[in-house]
């Protein structure tokens, strides 16, 4: 009896927390279809805000900017970070400790400090704020995530695979491409994805390192939320929510499929 009761309680608790997480988003989505500009009174259904969103040049341009910057920055960060991880892995303990601690700095430091420190750098060296500064800043804050993802894979790797490849007649470059890269690929991919998503999502650091010409989507959203009433923001949130939901569902289904396959394999082997 008490067991049933506690189960009921825990389900109710779970429901309430998820309600807290999702209610604001659902209200936001609901009002993106509201006819009037009011954010609390429902006056009828419309798609107008979506139409005006797609005709909003600021939004479209900043979306394109965001994607270009994220693509360039995350590819650069992945190459730089993977090479760095391999080098760091071969360092002696002392040097490795120093480099890793400095690498952790941008991760641990509050974003606003990273933002203003980069802003000071660009002012100091008189680099004009725009695409260049944004891309440099985005590479800087995403490289650590690539390194932190690749390092564990390098450590797990069998050292002798590379040497075996050399013994079998590969030149160092080929041995590296054929033996090392495939082993650490999962780390590289997750590092890249992390760099890409952080870059798309970043507001604070971009806010301090962007110029009037190059705006990213989060900065455009910020300027929209400053104007008190703009249901276009609701429409934009809805679209982003659906895109993210679709991506997560796809990834999740793939994972679930993989897990199922694994279970089957194990089950099949056990049966034999």
């Amino acid at each position, binding site marked *: 009896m008490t067991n049933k009761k506690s189960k009921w309680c825990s389900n109710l608790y779970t429901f309430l927390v998820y309600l*807290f997480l999702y209610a604001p988003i659902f209200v936001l989505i609901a009002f993106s279809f509201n006819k009037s500009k009011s954010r609390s009174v429902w006056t009828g259904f419309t798609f107008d805000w979506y139409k005006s969103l797609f005709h909003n040049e600021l939004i479209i341009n900043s979306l394109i900017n965001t994607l270009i910057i994220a693509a360039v920055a995350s590819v650069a960060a992945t190459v730089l970070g993977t090479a760095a991880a391999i080098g760091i892995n071969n360092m002696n303990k002392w040097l490795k400790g120093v480099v890793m601690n400095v690498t952790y700095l941008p991760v641990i430091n509050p974003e606003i400090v990273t933002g203003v420190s980069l802003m000071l750098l660009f002012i100091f060296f008189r680099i004009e704020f725009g695409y260049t500064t944004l891309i440099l800043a985005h590479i800087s804050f995403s490289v650590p995530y690539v390194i932190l993802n690749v390092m564990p894979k390098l450590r797990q790797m069998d050292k002798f695979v590379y040497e075996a490849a050399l013994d079998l007649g590969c030149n160092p470059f080929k041995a590296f491409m054929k033996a090392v890269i495939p082993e650490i690929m999962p780390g590289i991919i997750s590092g890249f994805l992390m760099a890409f998503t952080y870059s798309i999502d970043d507001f604070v650091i971009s806010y301090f390192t962007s110029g009037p010409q190059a705006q990213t989507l989060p900065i455009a959203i910020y300027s929209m939320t400053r104007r008190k009433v703009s249901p276009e923001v609701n429409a934009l949130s809805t679209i982003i929510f659906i895109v993210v939901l679709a991506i997560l569902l796809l990834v999740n289904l793939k994972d679930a499929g993989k897990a199922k396959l694994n279970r089957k394999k194990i089950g099949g082997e056990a049966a034999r």
Partner: protein
Amino acid sequence: MKSRAVSLPYMLWMIIFTVIPLGLVAYFAFTTSDGEFTIANISQVGQYSGVLVHSVWLSIVATVICLVIAYPLAFILSRKTENVQRTMIMLVMLPMWMNFLLRTYAWMTLLEKNGVINKIFGLFGLGPFNMINTPGAVVLGMVYNYLPFMILPLHSIMLKIDDKVIEAAQDLGASPIKVFTKAVIPLSMPGITTGVTMVFVPAISTFIISRMLGGGSNMMIGDLIELQFLGNAYNPNLGSAISLVLMVLILLCMSVLNQFDADDDREGMIV
């Protein structure tokens, strides 16, 4: 493979984009606008001690609320079947993937004077309550934005707590409260410290949430810094000094927190 040279480009990058900028923050903090040495900036930060205390207080409250909400949830989730867990954790992560500006904007519309919440209260003849532009609204915004950062590390540490340990404690005659304080909490300590850091650091350095939900009267350290760099009160020297104080403050809090964490293995802690 044995060569360290491949990391040279990164070492250069790290020096230019991590070490030098932080050095510049320190340099600006200790100089006047003419480049002369001074400690006036640092002592000027003292004038804003009210803002500092307010920020520390609000972020501590938000962190504690996150911990209190997330802890039972993480435990409940960790006892579900694998498939249910995967879906539930995905649902925790989903709001994280929406930009925090949109999530905060959602609360702005809910809390305002003729917002949805006041409309609902109105149905019962209550209100309207003044909810936006209060310290409570800022705390709410921080809790909402950073709750997943607390749930995820707690959940992953609680997955490792074996049901048998809990059963053993029960079999040995421990009351539910004792089981909790003597078995579950100590075993989940690394998750608690990670979660607390991941909520506290962004909370104390936030500047947009306080502006959107707190109006002008609930300034936080982040707002103060932003004003010195991009606002009307342009003064990068003072801004750098405040940033330096913020970094020291966070380092202090983290070293206090590390006292609770016997585990020295910090690698991969953030990710």
